């Protein structure tokens, strides 16, 4: 209290220097990065539980389905598309995990930052603008994806199922897959008032995609009409891209897969700019 009770004391107080020191270094860090920094700060507190959901679960899948079930598949049909099942499955799970993280992080956290915790509003009361808030959040999601994908690729290497240096490119590819979901989902989340639509999104889009977009088995196993649907899903492109990279079977088609995902990021981001502005700037 003494700091301020110097009210009227000569020379003022230490608390209110009206702008010298404190402001000296302002404006150096880009605004969006300041928003991203907040989410990183948050993550420090919750990373343990998020490691379980976003990393341990796919690794358990890999052990159970890739190794245990995979040995059965390999024995009976000599692997899938010429590789062992675990080598086939791992990149699929990687892309699927990226999809789930991207979607998860862009649903409840976005709604919470608007309605519950009002994090965005706090950021907007500081010098950040609405696009900084959006870009910062997406940048953080990308950073978190990069962490998860790196660990995942390391585990794959330990399993001995990384076949090519191209696998390093699977890191940005996985991040791209996740953000391709995060951006449009964030755009959608910013229009919602209740979280009930999120479980619908999961039930009818995310989980079916996870199961049928070439994650666990080649899309060619599906009836023909379903194949068309599967090829159109963003996850199919993410899965195929990651798989080609870790198996070292890279071709021009992969440029197409990446372009598809990039386009989705761009469209999602443009939509999110609109929905965020409409929701937060009134």
């Amino acid at each position, binding site marked *: *209290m003494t700091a*301020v009770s110097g009210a009227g004391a000569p020379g003022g107080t230490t608390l209110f*220097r009206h702008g010298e020191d404190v402001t000296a270094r*302002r*404006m150096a860090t880009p605004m969006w990065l300041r928003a991203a920094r907040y989410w990183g700060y948050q993550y420090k507190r919750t990373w343990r539980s998020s490691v379980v959901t976003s990393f341990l679960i796919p690794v358990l899948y890999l052990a159970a389905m890739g190794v245990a079930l995979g040995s059965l598949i390999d024995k009976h049909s000599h692997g899938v598309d010429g590789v062992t099942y675990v080598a086939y499955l791992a990149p699929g799970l990687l892309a699927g995990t990226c999809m789930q993280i991207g979607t998860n992080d862009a649903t409840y956290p976005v709604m919470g930052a608007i309605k519950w915790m009002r994090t965005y509003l706090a950021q907007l009361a500081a010098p950040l603008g609405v696009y900084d808030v959006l870009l910062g959040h997406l940048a953080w999601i990308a950073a978190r994806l990069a962490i998860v994908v790196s660990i995942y690729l390391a585990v794959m290497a330990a399993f001995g199922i990384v076949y090519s240096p191209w696998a390093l490119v699977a890191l940005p590819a996985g991040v791209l897959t996740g953000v391709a979901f995060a951006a449009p989902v964030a755009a959608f989340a910013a229009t919602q008032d209740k979280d009930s639509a999120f479980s619908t999104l999961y039930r009818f889009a995310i989980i079916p995609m996870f199961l049928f977009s070439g994650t666990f088995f080649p899309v060619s196993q599906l009836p023909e009409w379903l194949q068309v649907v599967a090829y159109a899903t963003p996850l199919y492109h993410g899965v195929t891209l990651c798989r080609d990279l870790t198996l070292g079977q890279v071709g021009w088609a992969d440029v197409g897969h990446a372009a598809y995902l990039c386009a989705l990021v761009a469209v999602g981001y443009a939509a999110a700019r609109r929905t965020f502005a409409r929701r937060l700037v*009134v």
Partner: protein
Amino acid sequence: MVEAHGLVKRFGDFVAVDGVDFSIARGESFGFLGPNGAGKTSTMRMISCISPLSGGTLRVLGMDPLKDGARIRARMGLVPQEDSLDLELTVLDNLMIYGRYFDMPKKVIRERAEQLLDFAQLTERANDRVDPLSGGMKRRLTIARALISDPDLLILDEPTTGLDPQARHLLWDRLYRLKQDGVTLVITTHYMDEAEQLCDRLVVMDKGRFAAEGTPRQLIEAYATKEVVELRFAPGEHEDVAPSLVALAERQEVLPDRILLYTDDGDAALAEVARMGHVARSTLVRRSTLEDVFLRLTGRTLVD
């Protein structure tokens, strides 16, 4: 610090702020008073560059809110109507995070946070989570947070709404200190006592316009008399008494439960009432307050 001409805010067809002019000088403590829905918060949100204006001109700290929003807000502290604290983080972390939005070095934030926690009387709670804190503590933390960047202008939207009297008085004391320290304050409130305590100058808003403006003293002089006599009679009795009292006061107001006589000499009026033979159940002579001004200007009917 703030200069507005013909400021308008529209939401679709609804006109929330209907062409107001004002200017706020450095070191001044300026209040927006008004009932709910009068347009106070909309005005504040335009000043704080959160809400784009629909018409008129506005300069804040010499800059244009539409173009220089970030630069203006970098020099401004904002206390929104609803707290936006991070409930799961600690008190200190909330200050740290907020300081980082202003890109202040961590060391500087930590130093200031210590002083501000002292100022907000939250030092003992520095490492506690925010969630279980009382409403008053959260409010003080929000104010401390808004001060982290040493702002030139502090904007407070209903700083004490919903707090108990002790918490309000503590908060007023803190805000009064800021005022003494030369921080420019812009406050909205619907509490008259708050406005009287804190505002050098204020405007009364009603339906998006300014119904009056001036210092608290000026407003009382212009819109109320020096004193007010409150008379309570038995139920049903005062409708009969009221007409005979009209001549005793500059203005008379008949409420369901009492009669108010606005006069410069309350005791004389009261003596006159007694001389006329009316026996009131209770009487009170008091000085006029801003509340009298406020109710006269914005009416007694409930707005919402």
